[in-house]
């Protein structure tokens, strides 16, 4: 299994190195910033992709996105820690831990109930954050200047490039590891659970445990994405990090990208980010119209998402490990 997937790993490596090189030598700063934000969100979308392969959609992953973002921000504000080698792992771990605990509950649910229960949990966190002065209430607060191995910089352009390279590296690592995971026996259970849970149980695997594992994984990745987003934007607040609209965006990008490959979320996320920037400039009041219309079009005419178009253009079948 792992051997046949080498082409995808190679493709991912080439792709990310190409983006990183282009970013450093060719692309303008504004585009670099867009890629930074897009890839931060893409990390979370990879998490949702793992769940979606299992046939589960969560309408509440803003919970983990917000947890990651607030972990990074709080470490900076309360302890003055901006070291990304501390803050980002902390964000990932915090989300994974909460995901592990809530996983015992949500793993018993499927379909709409799974989606709605997650939504309820995320709205509880949203309610707490909005009403708690100590956590910044509705205004939120600023994120500590990030440092790497103690080195920080005030030069905006250097900082942007460093963050951009960081998100490329972590994105590459995440994509390769998740791809490896999906190719493993445990990962292959994702599709099997979606198709027929009872047969999975007959094979001697626990569907609930398989789902629990994927849930923790998606929580961790979403937390990492949220942490990166907090650093990229330099600010956290409940509305843009934890509200249900954030969950909606994550699900939208997942559908837009398609389940075909772990590379898809990065492409889908970038399209989403560019679409948003241009839509706000061209038609300021029609952003939701565009998002909603796109969602409908994809569901009706392009169930495989953007990735299915790309793989069709490339003249090969979609990668389905």
């Amino acid at each position: 299994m792992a051997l046949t997937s080498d082409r995808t790993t190679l493709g991912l490596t080439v792709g990310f190195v190409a983006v990183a090189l282009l970013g450093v030598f060719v692309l303008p700063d504004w585009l670099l910033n867009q890629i930074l934000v897009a890839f931060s969100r893409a990390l979370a979308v990879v998490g949702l992709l793992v769940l979606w392969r299992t046939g589960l959609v969560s309408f509440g992953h803003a919970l983990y996105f917000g947890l990651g973002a607030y972990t990074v921000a709080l470490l900076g504000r309360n302890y003055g820690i901006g070291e990304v080698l501390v803050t980002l792992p902390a964000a990932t771990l915090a989300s994974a831990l909460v995901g592990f605990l809530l996983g015992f509950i949500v793993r018993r649910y499927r379909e709409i109930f799974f989606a709605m229960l997650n939504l309820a949990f995320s709205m509880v966190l949203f309610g707490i954050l909005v009403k708690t002065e100590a956590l910044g209430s509705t205004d939120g607060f600023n994120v500590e200047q990030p440092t790497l191995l103690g080195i920080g910089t005030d030069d905006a352009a250097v900082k942007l490039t460093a963050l951009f390279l960081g998100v490329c590296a972590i994105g590459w690592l995440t994509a390769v590891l998740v791809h490896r995971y999906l190719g493993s026996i445990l990962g292959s259970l994702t599709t099997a659970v979606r198709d027929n849970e009872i047969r999975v149980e007959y094979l001697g695997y626990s569907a609930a445990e398989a789902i629990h594992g994927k849930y923790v994984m998606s929580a961790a990745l979403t937390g990492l994405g949220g942490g990166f987003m907090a650093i990229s934007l330099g600010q956290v607040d409940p509305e843009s990090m934890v509200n249900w609209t954030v969950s909606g965006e994550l699900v939208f990008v997942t559908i837009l990208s398609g389940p075909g490959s772990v590379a898809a979320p990065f492409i889908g996320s970038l399209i989403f980010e560019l679409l948003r920037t241009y839509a706000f400039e061209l038609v300021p009041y029609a952003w939701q119209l565009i998002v909603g219309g796109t969602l409908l079009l994809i569901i009706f005419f392009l169930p495989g998402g953007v990735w299915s178009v790309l793989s069709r253009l490339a003249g090969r079948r979609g990668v389905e490990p």
Partner: protein
Amino acid sequence: MNLLLTILVEGLGYASYLFIVSLGLTVIFGVLKILNVAHGAFYAWGAYLCAFLIGEFSTMGVSDLGTMVAIPIAALIVGLILGSAIERTIIKNLYGRDEVLIVLATFGLFLVLEDVILLVFGVDPYFAYQPTYAMPGVQIGGIHQDGYKLSMIVVSLVIGLISWAVLNRTHWGKLVTAIIYDSELAVAMGINVPRVFYTVFVAGAVLGALGGAYIAPTISVAPGFGVEVIVLSFAVVVIGGLGSIPGAAIGALLVGMLRAYAVLQWPEIELFVVYAVMAAVLIFRPEGLFAPAKARKI
């Protein structure tokens, strides 16, 4: 004592319009098996059209009490025109697809309809307080109560009873029950299932719009206010049990009372108390408190 009474009346008023909206949502889910996020858009459209019509009627010289006609008119227009158009074009093509995908499709629809409101009615808020002036206030236990709010409670009771009677006491209700139980078998028995689906969807849309139209005179109708109600009425129907009318009533009462209590006594928890209860109910009774028994199919 007075506080208790205030919470009770506040909660009832809030519960009554939540019930009307949730009733539409739960009936559509019960019959069509579609969790319709676009329901929030029907609600918003009903409110906007109602506020707009009240304004128009008022400038035409209709009395304050007379402007209340706008409420049923707006609900019917939105339900019959927008509701049928959406069923015919989009929902019809979704029957039988994956449940979660349907939710996402209706979510897309919701976003589109929300923005169309902005394009049609503009971004400025609408105010239409005329009907609330027309209703006389009532003294209950020495506290002045808004007559309009009390009328809402009566209307929601009547609507709840009518829906229950239609579903349980008429031939048409029997058809619907048969479809809920097993739609394939219903087709085999010669029931025109697509027509029933269509009728139920439009009826649900009318209810959603009615909830919005009724609440319109008491608030400022501004962009984005359909969002809150859709998440809240989800909580209501999930607490009560998806597809159950008594469940929607209990859920609305619970949510209404909790929120009234939180607003008056403990504002810090206002935002999440409803969701905490929803999570608790889902954990202990995944099907909701009053979910109809599922037909066991082998």
